[in-house]
């Protein structure tokens, strides 16, 4: 018998955490002399009040779905992949190479190739820490963090010395060919009569992200490999007993994780910027950790949490634009959400569990030591 019903576990706990984070954020906004109600209104209209706002919210959410899934899949194997940032950077490199050097006849073929390219680059970048963890016991948290820095350096070198078009002062690749331009939501929704904002960057990558959510769900909960990954994550000894190889599962889980993080690049590099720039990832790799935590490592939870963080990102940008609330405060609000939904999870969970226990205390339950 679980202590809490499932709905309380997956809905009530995150919801209360969110409300607490919101209350604290409101207090902070009050403290700097701004009106929190007006701020919330601005965030909501800015992020959800127009197709333009939605377009940005969904664009950010697409990034977070990929990185959130990446972290979630590693969590299931008991691995903490902090390297989503670096893997997404390398994914961007993969996308850039695919898009720059192959003349694609149609965007759809380019997209498939870019998915493969970004996933392979991200996976390879994750493969080294994974191998070090699996065979040498070097802790993956440490190595993936270090690989974020190496990735940034690699990208810097590649952009400055290799991929920068001659004569350009900007450490960025040339603009991709028009043929690899991904349809935006505007272009996709126009044929069915929906007039979606032209300026918003949300694009067909969102569909890829949704498909990825479904596939990850299938993999984790419906395949023997998923069972092996989850078993390994829960108990190494039990996995060993069942003949589930530690090296194999660590490698597979991290390759999948790195691949998913890398795939984020089809959204931000191919879909939005249409060229590879420095710092294209913009912290989405780290937000993925919060998204996975809040989504309880379940693909549907990741989906919802990604939308929420997309809203916070876009709403925050609007706040910074239209009020004197400094951009840094937006980061504070995001941090509060992460703090409450991730790190302070037990603060909400424990009292709730106690409450549910008190509600259901019955005399006929079994005794225990």
């Amino acid at each position, binding site marked *: 018998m679980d202590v809490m019903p499932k709905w309380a576990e997956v809905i009530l706990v995150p919801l209360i955490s969110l409300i607490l984070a919101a209350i604290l954020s409101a207090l902070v906004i009050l403290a700097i002399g701004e009106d929190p109600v007006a701020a919330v209104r601005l965030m909501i209209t800015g992020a959800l009040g127009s197709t333009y706002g939605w377009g940005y919210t969904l664009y950010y959410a697409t990034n977070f779905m990929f990185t959130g899934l990446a972290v979630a899949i590693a969590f299931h194997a008991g691995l903490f992949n902090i390297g989503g940032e670096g893997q997404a950077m390398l994914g961007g490199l993969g996308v850039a190479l695919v898009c720059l050097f192959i003349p694609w006849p149609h965007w759809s073929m380019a997209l498939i190739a870019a998915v493969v390219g970004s996933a392979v680059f991200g996976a390879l970048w994750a493969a080294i820490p994974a191998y070090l963890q699996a065979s040498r016991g070097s802790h993956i948290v440490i190595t993936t963090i270090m690989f974020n820095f190496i990735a940034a350096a690699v990208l810097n070198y590649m952009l400055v010395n290799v991929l920068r078009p001659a004569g350009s002062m900007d450490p960025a690749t040339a603009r991709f060919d028009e043929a690899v331009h991904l349809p935006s939501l505007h272009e996709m929704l126009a044929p069915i009569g929906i007039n979606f904002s032209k300026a918003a960057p949300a694009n067909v990558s969102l569909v890829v992200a949704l498909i990825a959510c479904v596939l990850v769900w299938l993999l984790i909960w419906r395949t023997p490999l998923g069972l092996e990954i989850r078993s390994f994550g829960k108990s190494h000894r039990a996995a060993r007993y*069942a003949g589930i190889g530690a090296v194999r599962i660590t490698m597979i889980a991290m390759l999948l994780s790195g691949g998913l993080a890398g795939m984020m690049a089809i959204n931000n590099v191919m879909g939005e910027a249409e060229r590879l720039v420095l710092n294209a990832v913009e912290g989405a790799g780290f937000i993925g950790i919060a998204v996975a935590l809040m989504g309880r490592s379940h693909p549907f939870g990741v989906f919802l949490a990604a939308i929420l963080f997309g809203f916070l990102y876009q709403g925050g940008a609007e706040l910074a634009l239209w009020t004197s609330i400094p951009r840094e405060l937006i980061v504070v609000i995001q941090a509060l959400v992460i703090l409450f939904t991730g790190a302070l999870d037990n603060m909400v969970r424990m009292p709730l569990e106690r409450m549910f226990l008190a509600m259901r205390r019955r005399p006929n339950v079994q005794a225990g030591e």
Partner: protein
Amino acid sequence: MTAPAIELKGISKAFGPVQANKDISIRVMPGTIHGIIGENGAGKSTLMSILYGFYKADAGEVFISGNRTEIPDSQAAIAAGIGMVFQHFKLVENFTVLENIILGAEDGALLRPSLAKARKSLLELEQEYDLKVDPDAVIEEIGVGMQQRVEILKALYRQANILILDEPTGVLTPAEADQLFRILGRLKDEGKTIILITHKLREIMDITDTVSVMRRGEMTATVKTSETSPEHLAELMVGRKVLLRVDKTPAQPGNVVLDVQNLRVRDEQGVERLKGIDLQVRAGEILGIAGVAGNGQSELLEVLGGYATGTGTITLNGQPIDLTGKNSDGRSRRANGIAHVPEDRQREGLIMDFSAWENTAFGYHHDPRYASGILMNNAAIKADTQEKMDRFDVRPPHPHLAAKNFSGGNQQKIVLAREIERNPDLLLVGQPTRGVDIGAIEFIHQQIVALRDQGKAVLLVSVELEEILGLADRVAVMFDGQIMGTRAATDTDEKELGLLMAGVTA
């Protein structure tokens, strides 16, 4: 009439929804040995933890020698003259006996006077109770029996008049257990009061004066030991009549199924844990491996189960089995026809957070019946789990329930059902009834015997000598990574096996 040494009145304690102790009252007279017996989870340890100040009772009173006493912490318990010997000793491994004894009872900032004083009183205690130990020996270098003596001395040094022992014989050889009982008898003669917590009926019958039976948090009966019988106590513990003997016909051994020659295993530190094991198990027989825990039995199971490496030769039905780890793991062993019920079901045999149906597929998740194509056939697994649960009488019979929500006995039934129903040629079973309630023990033993009667080979490892003698057809005794001898179960007794377990060969 003298006041009871300990009297508990109406003790209740709940952990969340679980009522661990319900209105418990007992009286223990001074100078007696009082047994408390009950299955795992009956609430024995909770009760003693309340008495020792680890938990605070929700309701009830404690009287020590007739005076109402509050015991908010273990310091208060010690002050009240209560000493506790835990199942897992609380000793500092690299300290000497003397240092361990004064630990927490030092007289001042300087150690030397305390040590001198302790040495003197240790000598007196030794003479008074015939409890010999070397005060300067380092704990990690002396045996478990000796370590337990140190624990008892620690309590006596703190002027304990009431001694509580929690499952004291779990780690002892039969000979060491007998010694312990002699010491307890001596302590009793000197006027100490002893509370013995155990789940072993034999110990209760051997040395207690009175015995209380606990079941599901309640004290179901307190009786004079001389007026009861093991069968009666078992019935009180379980709530129904149970068969204490394993009911089986003589074995009909067939061909050699498992042949192990010169098996050697080293652990990660490079210490040799198995030092040349030779053994054979035939079809239709149960070979029991007896021995005190930690003498290589676990390593034997691990290497046979495919998740440790070793050298030597192992054949199954004449086919060689890989030991190097290259082509061997748990999965390949299963394919070879070896099923394994591991010693630690909670950390190896099951994943406690997984549902019963996921655990039923665990290890066999590549089986075509469970996985069609790349997807698992969850409906088929659930249906199969339901059938297994019904056949093995797992309660509650809900495949969706997480493994951690089943009792120890029902968890073991889930593992056993998974492994036995594979119809293996060889079944490895480690500690099949550890932490399992008496009612389920009977059933588990019947299933193992039934598999034997189908002509399968069974290798049984257990630290419970009674279980080995009751269940096995032949008994091999392990000591320090070697097999000291093999006997037919009908031709030997606990005394002979006990000597072999201690490394003594005749």
